């Protein structure tokens, strides 16, 4: 089950992207994601798509993992696209009784689908090349100015880090509980949608109890290793901007600029 859940999983490799400062990666991906909602042309999206493919190749990730990263959002993607196709007003290009498809609806559905796919691609690039600790260290550094307002930046980033680490663990646990229940006759893949949803209910309670038990044990282990909430800690990992980071910033800004100014060709 863990293998099926690619989004948010770190790829243990050594690549140009792995070596970049996590703060640079977080901020660049953040701005690209915002940009996705402002690009208005297919050619702009095509440039961003090619850029994401280039980054995936650069990150030494395999494409089957990338494809798996789309799976969790597939239902959302189909639902949104269908909704846009049938309910967007505009020039009617197809009509059967009360069902209407408009040109604007089709265009919007394509745009939203591309946006969601690119969103998962860029998120994948960030999480597959940045370990959870790097992510949280980078995130903590970015939000650290908020400390002057009393915001617990360190605690929040550690909380996120541990939550991220536990995502695959919980999936494995769910898989284990499912198999244990299936061995005692439970059926998760039979019946109507509602029946299937109901069959998952007995899974939730043991999963929740196990998660709470694990959280308790981890908290004890962290305390035993000297962790005290609010206490100052040194940083093992040094974050320093280097030439490759500036190169990455320059290239990304260039690509972002081109994707905005490029003219429509279709």
């Amino acid at each position: 089950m863990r293998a099926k859940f690619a989004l948010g999983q770190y790829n243990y490799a050594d690549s140009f992207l792995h070596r970049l400062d996590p703060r640079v990666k977080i901020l660049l991906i953040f701005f690209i994601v915002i940009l996705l909602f402002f690009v208005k042309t297919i050619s702009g999206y095509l440039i961003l798509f090619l850029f994401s493919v280039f980054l995936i190749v650069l990150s030494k990730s395999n494409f089957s993992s990338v494809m798996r990263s789309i799976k969790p959002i597939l239902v959302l993607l189909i639902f949104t696209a269908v909704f846009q196709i049938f309910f967007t007003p505009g020039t009617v290009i197809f009509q059967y009784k009360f069902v209407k498809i408009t040109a604007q609806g089709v265009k919007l559905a394509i745009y939203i689908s591309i946006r969601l796919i690119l969103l998962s691609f860029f998120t994948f690039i960030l999480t597959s090349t940045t370990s959870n600790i790097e992510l949280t260290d980078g995130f903590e550094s970015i939000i650290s100015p908020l400390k002057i307002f009393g915001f617990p930046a360190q605690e929040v980033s550690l909380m996120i880090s541990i939550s991220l680490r536990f995502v695959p663990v919980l999936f494995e646990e769910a898989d284990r509980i499912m198999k244990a229940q299936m061995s005692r006759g439970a059926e998760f893949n039979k019946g109507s949608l509602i029946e299937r949803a109901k069959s998952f209910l007995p899974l939730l309670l043991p999963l929740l109890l196990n998660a709470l038990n694990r959280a308790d044990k981890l908290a004890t282990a962290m305390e035993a290793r000297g962790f005290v909430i609010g206490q100052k800690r040194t940083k093992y990992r040094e974050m320093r901007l280097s030439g490759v980071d500036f190169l990455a910033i320059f290239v990304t800004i260039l690509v972002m600029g081109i994707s905005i100014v490029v003219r429509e060709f279709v």
Partner: protein
Amino acid sequence: MIRFESVYFAYEKGKWAVENLNFEIKKGEFVALLGSNGSGKSTIARLTDGLLLPNKGNVFVDGINSKDSPDILKSKVGIVFQNPDDQFVGTTVEEDIAFGLENLNIERKEAHRRVYEITKRLGIFRYLKSSPSMLSGGEKQKVAIAGVLAMQPDYLVLDEVTALLDPVSRKEIFNLVYTIAEENNIGVLYITHISEEVVPVERIILISNGEKIKEGGSEEIFSNYRLLESVGVSVPAIFKVYSFLKRRKPDTSPKELSESTLLNKL
């Protein structure tokens, strides 16, 4: 020195988990705490480094009362728990080992040196950039032990660290801890329910229902079969061979309590 002075501890009112417990561990000494499941072993482990505080009596570590400064105790006493998966905080082996060092405010350069040295010593250096969850049971436990040893504690409490391992890994971990503790003059409290493991240990504390039943060397502890049976602890097979030989050859001494020596004599 770790000193338990008439220690009582209860999770529920009127039901002692630990009752009138007295013992000492000197720096550099290797002591085993042997007892069946539910005998209060893990509670004793948590009392040792201030994770739990006694309801009655006192726990002293180098003269510091755990009730006065439980946080100082955590830098003096390192504790490793049974299941390493419940203790990992970092995404990679390196980050996880560094977690405790960050909490102790160890400078970056020194932290890197300690991580390098301890992983080399425990033979897990090649896994530095790997995810701890991908390692074998024995390797995972080595990572958990490394995380605590890197903090350079004066005392080490190992709470059933080999319970989930196969006999070969169990022996490997025991020998490794024994040697490292001897090299670095670390006082060790080795907690287990597996009697075979502690045969070579010079001082064994047998506990049952939170009370100390007996304290002494292998011969004193394991020669009373009826007592061991009453507290749910098995007699080690090697000790049975030793007893048999001792009856035939009275000159057999406890120093010969090793597989190879006894086999030769047989």
